[in-house]
């Protein structure tokens, strides 16, 4: 299998965000069939002074090496995918994610993460979110999770 070279990751335009959290609700719908957002959402929008920050996985994949059972794999489209059928719920990836983007909800033992599905992009009424294609080798330099208000 050829290694994926690019991956789509989320880019945030804080100036367009009004903090409505429809993105989080759309995300929790994908992962938990619930529109609660919050702890059940892989993307989080955090108020920061008068503006907002986005906190989400950047598909960097440092967690791949943490998984003892191979539940974390980089898929053909480049995203880091957690197979919850294989996952044994050890939380090693949650604990070791350097940016805290591997998430755990109280609803189940297996963690979950952003899969770049675009549900949040579609849900945002203001166009504050965008999926952009980046080279996997360059993700470390891009680090979109840091974009937003300082």
């Amino acid at each position, binding site marked *: 299998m050829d*290694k994926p070279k690019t991956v789509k990751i989320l880019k945030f335009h804080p100036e367009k965000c009004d903090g409505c959290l429809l993105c989080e609700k759309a995300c929790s719908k994908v992962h938990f069939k619930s529109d609660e957002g919050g702890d059940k959402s892989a993307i989080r929008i955090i108020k920061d002074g008068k503006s907002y920050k986005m906190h989400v996985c950047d598909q960097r*994949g*440092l967690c*791949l*090496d*943490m*998984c*003892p*059972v*191979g539940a974390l*794999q*980089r898929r053909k489209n480049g995203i880091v995918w957690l197979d919850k059928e*294989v*996952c*044994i*719920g*050890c*939380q*090693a990836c*949650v*604990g*070791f994610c350097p940016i805290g983007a591997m998430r*755990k909800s*109280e609803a189940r*033992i*297996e963690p979950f993460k952003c899969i770049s599905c675009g549900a949040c992009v579609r849900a945002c009424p203001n166009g504050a979110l965008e999926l952009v294609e980046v080279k996997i080798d360059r993700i*470390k330099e891009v680090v979109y999770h840091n974009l937003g208000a300082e």
Partner: protein
Amino acid sequence: MVEGQIPIEEYDTGNTKHKWDFKKLKQAHRVVFKYSYKKGKVEKGYTNRTLYINLSKKEIKEKKVTEEMKKIFTGGRGFGLKLLWDSIKPTTRWDSDENDLVITTGPLCGTTQYPGSGKSLCLTVSPSTNIICDSNVGGFFGPYLKFAGFDAIEIQGKAKHDVVIIIDGEKGKILIETAPLEETDTHLLSEQLTSMYASEDTDKSRQKVSVVTSGKGAENSYWGCMNFSFYDIRRKVPRVKQAGRGGLGTVLRNKNIKAIITKVEKVSGISNNPADPVTLAKIGTKLHREVRDLDRYQCNMRAVGTAHLVEIMDEYDLLPTENYRFGSFPKASKIYSPEFYKYFTKIIPDGCWHGCTMACAKTVDGFTVMTGPYKGQKVTVDGPEYETVGCGANMSIWDPLWILEFNFYCDTYGLDTISTGTAIAFYMEMYEYGILNKKRCDGIELCFGNSYAVLELLHRIASGDKGEFVQVASKGIRRVKDWLIKNGWGDKNLIEDCGMESKGLEYSEYVTKESLAMQGGYGLTLKGPQHDEAWLIFMDMVNNAIPTFKDKAEALHYFPMWRTWFGLNGLCKLPWNDIEPANNAETDDPTKVPEHVQNYVDYQSAMTGKKITKEELILQSERCYNWQRAMNVWMGRGRRKDDWIPFRSMGPVTDMEYISRKDRYDRYLAEKIGISEKEIEKMNLKEKMKILYDFRQDQYQKLADAVYFRRGWTPNGVPTPQKMKQLGIDNPEMLKFLQETIEKDDKDGLNVWGGKYGKGEEPPSIQPKYWEKW
């Protein structure tokens, strides 16, 4: 940590690949007897039943775990003691038909969220000590045994021919099959069986199988270890962890068990069905983050495992060198952890159970074997851990590659590296003094530093060599001491003082000469000199935090109880204090790591659903600890005379040991014994050594006095019925036995303190039979 990954499919160890005809191997199997069971569910950490197999009677049955059993024995090692008490007799020896080999799990065993939660506790009557030996081991077997349906497995009797025991958690079947054609040595046998019993030909399927094996060395020695496998989906080999101490693998092979195999249908994060999985995930994640942020600045376990200790021990004069004569050596830097780091495979999750992010289980892959039957093959070496490197130092082997060679053969032959290394170091010292020589060693030049000779001895043991030396050497230090003395070779006192064994078990790899508390940590133990009960050297020697006998006794009460607790629950001790919270030093009791103790309180509560306190954790241990000591007494071994330790562990036995640390010992004579500097100058070496010898022997007896008293025992080291009742143990047979023993000791004049108390000194109690007033 290096960024960038080795994709699971792409990693290649470079090991020699083996092709076996599995069909042929399987066709040669014959089912001897079998049993079907109803698959159960784990409830709050317990399956509430144990599996009993009798190989002589061809019987298999389930035993119920009662609430009372859980209350008194908690689980794990505690369950093992209960099962042994019900099955063996005081006269049972390691090779008796009724000797019971027990592998237990514990209520927290198999949790994936908290690091270090996959330990099995193995117990049996040991060939080395003739009392119960317990050994704590990683690998997948314990968790899988539980998920297959049992809190423990016990095996009595012996099979007529080599058998494998299969616990099939997928189908709910136990099978005892002959296995005539498989290999015996672990690295091959575990690979064969893992492939043969996996449901599908995939790595994920092989990962759901775990096997317990030993090897040819175990058959021909008293040092047999049991290897517990854990299949590595990246390296694509079953790796192994050892239940090393006390010859458990020897018992396994004596029962003609080639392997025990367990497989499971599925493992999930809640296979234990905990009462509160949310809390478990929270405290587990908290610890993962501590490991992530702090390990590289603390123990560096994730990079080099326990081998990080080598340089620390060398610096503090604690690394056993040339049979514990010295604690450091000029060449020691050749075997510091960075030297092994060069060979270790990096950035692979190296936990011996899922979710252990301490990941201390390092390997060298593609190691080219240099001697013996596997010469030239490329293999995965599991380790070396600190103890194995320490054995290198003890045998004066300063080459990492030869330590790896020793490590590999010990593992695959099923030999405990600690007992093997410590014993050979003793034989080497005897060789240096001429008490042993080439002729007496069956032609082996067993001198310090001779790596070839060490491996030669291992190969001869494994091949069943009938030479007199090989035969007796493989039974350990105690038997060799008796053999040397019987032959009139060498001075009896020198032999007794140099050979590092107590209760018949070889010491593990720390020099204890300057720490009285640690001498107690080795001598005043249940199974023999192993550091898993207490490690007090820094607290005692470096920080002088426990200066009085009473302080030391308190430490020799608390820490053995605390460390016993891990074994009752199926846990590893390392994540307790080999990683510490950043603010640990500022807490009121840093040596106990209070925040982590609280983690364990929360952890057990979250599993069982029962609220508990940290004091109750100690109480859980105290019950089992006292029970095991009482069983030692019951088997004729658990008294003051049995807590004897060799003088090599207390101070300098030979002139060169004194001279090489002359300033230290001269100062000791002045400061601790109160001899004036003038007098010391006048004394010759012999006189000084004699004074030191007598003083330190007396110190050890005084320490034993204080510890026995603190633990609630008689001055002869026997647990009292009063103490047992306080702990909630009311087994009438046990209480009656203890009462009778104490009365007999009284008649024999044995209930007296061991120390010589001078003016201004007092024994722990001046009341005779102080325990009767409790």
